[in-house]
Each structure stands twice: as structure tokens, then as C-alpha cells.
């Protein structure tokens, strides 16, 4: 079963097209949702939660229709909003217990489960204090606890590491990775690419209400066919001249390394030949890998170009 799927999903707010023709099928696991502001990430989450009705198209979450089975969906998903979303006057325990009861848990179950998830997110004695005095990191962990209290099968996290210090960020990312390991599917909406790269197996890149790219991160980071990093020691000027003569473009040069672009795939021999002619020593020739950031930027540029 897919974690969630959309087919030709569109959402229009007056003259604003928030989602246009979004077609996706996401397998269970930890998935990153990337995109600049206004890309449609929050609208997509809202539609998947069954809060917003799509203008056209179909969407399903855990096999449930978002139009007809909204309450059933919300029983099985957890949502961590970007904003504080705290209820003044309640302690951490009271807040998580309250959300457990809202989800349909009995008094006893909700109370027991509240302490379990607060232990899990490491809110120790602070759980008995009013939430107004919590730090940003504590608030984020508390929001994660309320999303976990009814043990959902799918979690939507909207900017879960926003405003957190490095240590808090590491803790949150560890928790997300652990949740993925425990069999909970997680959709992490974030603009922090290193965070997504660290915990997610797959990524969906959105822009202008469309899905620009999606797939496994390791596939997106596959070796580049024509971009190589050359480790060379010897006469650098001669080497560059020899490369130019063979139509190999030098893109960058730093610390004894040259970043080059081959004229076409499978022409690595031209670099070895150039090194031999320049009289130096070629100690390495590695294909470059696209980083997630490069993939993200390339996807956005393609969209702007089109």
C-alpha cells in the first residue's frame, strides 16, 4: 500500500493556483517534501489531511479517500504544524493528553501513552510545567509527542527543525530516523536540504504548485556522466592547455584538483592522455555526484525556464 497518492490534483484559491496537476505515488518510508515558499507544500498537506477539498483530481492517504474518509484518515495520521500551536494554561502532559483524547483515546490509554511519548521525545520534568515557558526545541518535541500520542501510521512534519539549535536539530532528526525505523511513514516538509538529505530515503521537489522532481535521494545523487574531478600533480598550465586541445572544459581548480566537463560520455581517456602529454601524474579521476541542493536548484531552474 502506498503512504499517499495523488492523481492530477489541483487546488485553486480564487485566482491563485495552489496545486496544479499533482500526480504522485509515495511508498511508505521517510520522504522529504522540498520547495520554496508558495510551492504548494502546505496546501498538499492540507489536502492529504482532508482539511481542504481539492478543486479537482483524486488523493488518497493510506488507501483512504481524502474526500470521503477524512475522519478515518485523521485517526491514522499525525501532524506537526510549523507554528507553536500550543494551548495556554495546559502543561506538556495536559496538552498531549488532551490531543490523545481528541483523537479518540480513552482516559487511561491517553494518560499512559502521554507519558510514553513524552519519555520518547525526552521531555522529562518539564512535562509538568506550563507550555508557555518552553524553549523552541521543547515546543517542537512536544508537538511531535502530540502527533505520536495515538500512534499514527503516517506523520506529516511541517518544518520540524525550524528555529532549533544544532543539538536540538540533531535530536529531532534522530527521532525522525527512529520513527522511520519503527515502521511509521514520515513526510518531512522542509527547506533545510541537509536535514532532508540526512533522514529521508526519497524526496519530492515542488515548485509553483507542481511536482518538479521526485525519487530516491541516492538515485538523484548518482554519478554524473560528463563531470569529473581530476587529482593531478605536475605542470598545471600545461595540463589545462592539453585538456582544452581535447575539448575538455575546466570548470574549477582548487587544491590540486580540477573539475572538468568531458565533451561526451565515456571520453575519460582524453584526460589520461592530456596528463601523459603534460608530463604530470594523474592520481585520481572521479565522477562528480549531484548534491540534493544541485538537484533542487536545477529542478527550480528548469521550471522557471519552462
Amino acid at each position: 500500500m502506498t503512504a499517499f497518492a495523488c492523481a492530477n490534483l489541483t487546488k485553486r484559491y480564487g485566482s491563485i493556483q495552489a496545486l496544479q496537476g499533482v500526480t504522485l505515488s509515495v511508498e511508505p518510508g521517510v520522504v522529504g517534501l522540498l520547495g520554496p515558499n508558495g510551492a504548494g507544500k502546505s496546501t498538499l498537506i492540507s489536502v492529504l489531511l482532508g482539511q481542504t477539498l481539492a478543486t479537482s483530481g483524486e488523493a488518497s492517504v493510506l488507501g483512504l479517500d481524502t474526500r470521503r474518509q477524512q475522519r478515518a484518515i485523521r485517526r491514522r495520521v499525525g501532524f506537526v504544524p510549523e507554528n507553536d500551536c500550543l494551548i495556554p494554561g495546559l502543561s506538556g502532559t495536559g496538552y498531549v493528553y488532551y490531543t490523545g483524547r481528541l483523537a479518540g483515546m480513552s482516559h487511561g490509554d491517553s494518560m499512559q501513552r502521554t507519558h510514553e511519548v513524552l519519555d520518547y521525545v525526552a521531555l522529562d520534568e518539564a512535562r509538568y510545567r506550563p507550555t508557555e515557558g518552553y524553549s523552541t526545541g521543547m515546543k517542537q518535541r512536544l508537538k511531535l509527542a502530540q502527533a505520536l500520542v495515538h500512534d499514527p501510521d503516517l506523520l506529516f512534519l511541517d518544518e520540524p527543525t525550524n528555529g532549533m539549535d544544532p543539538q536540538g536539530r540533531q535530536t529531532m532528526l534522530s527521532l525522525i530516523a527512529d520513527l522511520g525505523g519503527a515502521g511509521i511513514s514520515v513526510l518531512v516538509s522542509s527547506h533545510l536540504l541537509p536535514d532532508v538529505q540526512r533522514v529521508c530515503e526519497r524526496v519530492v521537489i515542488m515548485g509553483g504548485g507542481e511536482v518538479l522532481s521526485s525519487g530516491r535521494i541516492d538515485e538523484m545523487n548518482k554519478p554524473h556522466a560528463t563531470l569529473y574531478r581530476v587529482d593531478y600533480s605536475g605542470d598545471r598550465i600545461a595540463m589545462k592547455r592539453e585538456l582544452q586541445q581535447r575539448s575538455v572544459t575546466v570548470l574549477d581548480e582548487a587544491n590540486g584538483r580540477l573539475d572538468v566537463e568531458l565533451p561526451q560520455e565515456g571520453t575519460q581517456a582524453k584526460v589520461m592522455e592530456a596528463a601523459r602529454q603534460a608530463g604530470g601524474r594523474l592520481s585520481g579521476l572521479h565522477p562528480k555526484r549531484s548534491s540534493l541542493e544541485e538537484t533542487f536548484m536545477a529542478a527550480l531552474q528548469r521550471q522557471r525556464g519552462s
Partner: protein
Amino acid sequence: MTTAATTNPNRYRRWDGELNRGNRAWLVIVVTGIRLALKERKTRTLVMTVSGVALGNCIILYVLSLLELVTGTEQGRAILEFVRAFLRVDISGVTRIEEYREILWRVLFLLVIKVELFWVLLTVSKVGPGLIAHDLRHRALPIYFAKPVTPLTYVLGKWIVVAAFVAMVVLVPNLFSMIVGVLITGGLHTWGQTLGLGWDLLVSGLLICVTSGAIVLALSSLTSDHRYVTVGWLAVCLLPIFAQGILDESLPAGSTLGWLGCISLRDNVMTVTDWLFGMRGLWEASTLPTEAFAESMLKPVRPICAITVLSGWVVCAMLVTYWRVVTFSRSAANV
């Protein structure tokens, strides 16, 4: 439903319990709302002080029951005769006090409700403004609408919180003092005589709960700052009374405008309550001489007008609240 305890707090453990299928989220919202409101000392004080009104009511009912007891005996009648001769006033009505029990009780409770409306004004201005406004201010709505809570459930839960507090200051003290009154007056006859009054108290109490709850919730849904809601609530309740007074003064002597009684919430509530209590009929049926007093109890507004005005307020208020909450729920991920 039992859950396996977390043995290692750093590893996530799945929960093997089941979620309740029935929609009781409104009850959870009510209980939490009441608990949070009662954490405020001022709210607790308001609720406690109204019990003083109920106590005063009980004391008056006790005095009336004593009078009934006294006038039922030869000695009592002799004492009353002595008082009549000594004071040189006509107290013949007192000797037939048992005949007037129902009407006296109704007049008493009507006066008590008038006093309690002041407590309603204060209690609602303390409890109601933050109910939705705080959720808007702290952006807590996504928490509700990411759980299986519908906008209707949310509004219902919040409305019952206000209604519960209004019931605490109107309904509960009145019903309590009525039961005490019946017990101390004694007899099945008393119970039968006052059963109708109990229903009337219940209906009038619910009328106040519905009206005040709906209006303050609508105001609370319009802003994220509860102070504006408090000002709005006080304005809705008090400004028409002031306007009424000013307009009434400006009219030529002897003339009156019937619709003036319709512009204030308090007067509309009291008109409907008068009508529910059947004061005009009771007075006319009794042998009490002061017809003018009976007339003074009644507003010059027909009950149907007051009911229409109150219904209009409630329907508009509920529509505004529901529309606002539905709007927020549909953009909950973006709120």
C-alpha cells in the same frame, strides 16, 4: 485497553490500543475548557459568589414557609391580628399566604433571575472571550483539525463551555433553591404546585445559556485578541440599555415606543421569561388587589417579538462562528 510500557525511552514503541469510534471530542473540549477556566481565581470567585444569591433565595423561601406555618395555626392568626391592630395596616393577604404561594415564588425567582443576569454578564465576559480567540492567537486550530474533530464538534464543545458557566450562575442556583424551598415547605401539594415553575426555570435558564454562549462565541471567532471580545460583549449587552434610557428620556411625556424594549438583550430575555412564568395570567387569576404592580412586571413588548429578536441573534451568531471556524479548519495547515 492496556499498552506495553516503554522499556527503552529512546526507541519508539508502537501502541496496540484502539481508538474510540464514537465522536466524543466535544465532551473532551468541554471538560478541558471548564477546567482551564476554573484555574482562574476570578472565575472561581464569580461562580462562588452567585451561591450567595441562591442562599438569599433559600432564606426568603424559608421565611415564606414559616409564615405559611404560622398562619395555619390559631396562635399564629392571633399574633397576626395583634400585629394588624398594633401597626394599623391591612395584612389580610398574609393570612392567606398559602393561596399565593405559586405567584410569590414566581415573582421571587423572576427578581432573582434579574440579579443573576448581572453575574451572567460578568461570568461570560471572563470565560467566553478567550475560547476561540486564544486558539486563534496561539494558532492551536491545526491541532484540533488534524485530529478527527469537525468544525461542528469544535463549536459545540466551545459553546457548551460558556453554557456550562452560565448554567452555574443561573440554572443551578435557581433549581437548587427551588428544591430546597419545596423541601422546607413540605408536602406533595407543594411539589405539584411548583413543578411548572421548575420547568420554567429550566427553559429560561437554557434560553440565557444559548443566547449568551452563541453571541460571545461569535465575537470570539472574529479576533485573536480576547480583550476586543470582552469589550464587544459588554457593548452588545450594555449599549442598547444606555440607548434605551436616552431614547426613553427624549420621548414626550406619556408616549412610548414599543420597539425600544426589543433592542436590549436583557429586556428580550426578561420579556420571554415573564411570558414563560405566565405572570400576567397568574396575577389576573389571583385576588391580589394591586393590578398596577402586575402591569409593571411586564414589558410593553410582545413575547413573539422578543423571541424573534433573540432567535435572530442566536442564528446569526452561530452562522458567523461556524463560518469562521470552517474557514480556519480548511486552511489549518496554513494558519
